[in-house]
Structure formats: structure tokens, C-alpha cells
């Protein structure tokens, strides 16, 4: 797998950055050839992980890139922060679990929306979520 074109980096530090990140993600998705409801689905997943940065880690960034593997094209969304990290990832991935006043939908929901989902986190170091979706 390799990335192509410029990586698009959106710094996330307030709620208006969430909107910017998902709009850039939608635009990139359309540019890459995603159609139907996919651009919106990708934008929704970006919205969830970007909001987690604002709510749980204060600041971080979303890095968007086009990817290709053999003959297929896709989009990669990397959300990373140097926030408090997640002690129990399995618990955090449970639908309905929230350490705050959320609905606990963001992480499991984003996983359902995308084709590939990987989360790495270290307490005190930060969290990074990598998600991919392929053009059908």
C-alpha cells in the first residue's frame, strides 16, 4: 500500500476544525472517485474521530491521504493526538461506552462506517486512529 498526492493535514483544536476536517475529507473522497453515500459516510467517520480529539485530548490533527494498493484506490484518515490516551481500548470500542457524557457511539460507529479501522493508544502519550475505505 502506498499513499499518493499531497497529504492533507488539518490541525484540530476547536469544534470548527471538526467541520473543516470533514469537509476536506468529503472533497478528497469525491476527487478520489467515491460516489453515492460514501463521501458522506467518510465525512461522518472523520467527524467522530475529530470530535474525540477535541473532547478527550484537546488538540491533535487529522491527516487525509489518497492510497492505492494493487489496482484499488482508497482514502486514509489518520487522527492523532498527544492527549491522555485510552487505558482500556476494548472498553472504549464498546458501543454505548463513554467516559464522559457522550453516547459512546463515536469509535464503534466510525469503525462500522469505514472498511479498515485501527486504534493505538498509550496512556499519557496519546492516541492514533487509522481508518481506510476503498473505492467500490
Amino acid at each position, binding site marked *: 500500500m502506498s499513499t499518493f498526492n499531497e497529504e492533507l493535514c488539518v490541525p484540530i483544536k476547536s*469544534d*470548527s476544525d*471538526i*467541520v473543516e476536517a*470533514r*469537509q476536506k475529507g*468529503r*472533497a478528497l473522497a*469525491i476527487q478520489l472517485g467515491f*460516489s*453515492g*453515500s460514501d*463521501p*458522506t*459516510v467518510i*465525512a*461522518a467517520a472523520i*467527524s*467522530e474521530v475529530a*470530535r474525540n480529539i477535541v473532547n478527550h485530548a484537546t488538540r491533535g490533527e487529522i491527516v487525509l491521504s489518497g492510497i492505492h494498493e494493487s489496482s484499488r484506490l482508497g482514502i486514509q484518515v489518520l487522527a492523532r493526538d498527544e492527549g491522555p490516551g485510552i487505558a482500556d481500548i476494548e472498553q472504549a470500542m464498546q*458501543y454505548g461506552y463513554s467516559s464522559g457524557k*457522550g*453516547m459512546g*457511539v*463515536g469509535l*464503534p*460507529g466510525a469503525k*462500522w*462506517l469505514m472498511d479498515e479501522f485501527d486504534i493505538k493508544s498509550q496512556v499519557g502519550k496519546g492516541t492514533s486512529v487509522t481508518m481506510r475505505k476503498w473505492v467500490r
Partner: protein
Amino acid sequence: MHVPILKQGDYLIATIQSVLSDADLLQLRDDLADRVGQFRSRGVIIDVTVLDVIDSFATRTLRGVAHMLKLRGAETVIAGIQPDVAFAMVQLGLTLEGVGTALDLEEGLAFLNAKTKRGGSVWRGPIPSRSAPKAPLDAQIRKANRRRK
């Protein structure tokens, strides 16, 4: 981005005109709470046609608005959720349980009239076309994507 709220008889109509940040959405909630008290409105329509995404936060906020306004004596209906936005909501496992929904403003008004059993509010704005058939789902999604590009 400020959301204008129009008073229409017993009802309030809030038409979202651009993509909203979390803060904008919370502002809309507070504005609606104020206006419902001020005008003693019986129903509120929130037109979300232009929203690009309704994620967990937006869902939670819209549900909260509807429940709060209910306690203030008003019914809420969310109108105009686009097919691709609805699709993503379903995949996120989100529902607007307990909140009225309608395809568009006209249906929203019909919903409120039925709910508040008054039928008293007359829509004086542009007449939405009743007979125009809805475009197929594919075309609606393509149109929505063009609009938000």
C-alpha cells in the same frame, strides 16, 4: 453561522443555512428555548436539508432540543434529512427516537398540524411543490454531494 428562526403562527421554523459547528448547534438550541417561551409556540420545525453530516453530537443535541421543547409545550419536527446523511446515521447506529421527522418543510407542517390538532397555522412563504415527484435516491445523493463540494 447563525440560524434564523421564523415565527409562523403557532409555529417556529428554524432553517439551517450552512454547515454548523457544535457551538452553532448549541446556540440554536438556546435560541429555540427562548423563542418558544416568548411566543408560546406549539410546534417547531428544524430544517436540516443543508447539513452535511448528522453525527453522534448533532443527534444528541437534536434529541435534547426536542425533549426540552416538549417540556415547554412544543412539538419538534426535524425536516429534510438527506438520504446519504440518513444512511450514515443508520450505519453509526444513531436514531432520532422520540423526535418527529419529515421529508421536507411541507410535511413538517402537516406533521405539526396533526400533532397539535389545530391546523391553525397557514404557511405564507413560497408554496412548496406538492406534486413534484422525488428524484430517485441516487440522483438525490449526487445532488447533495455537488451542493456540499
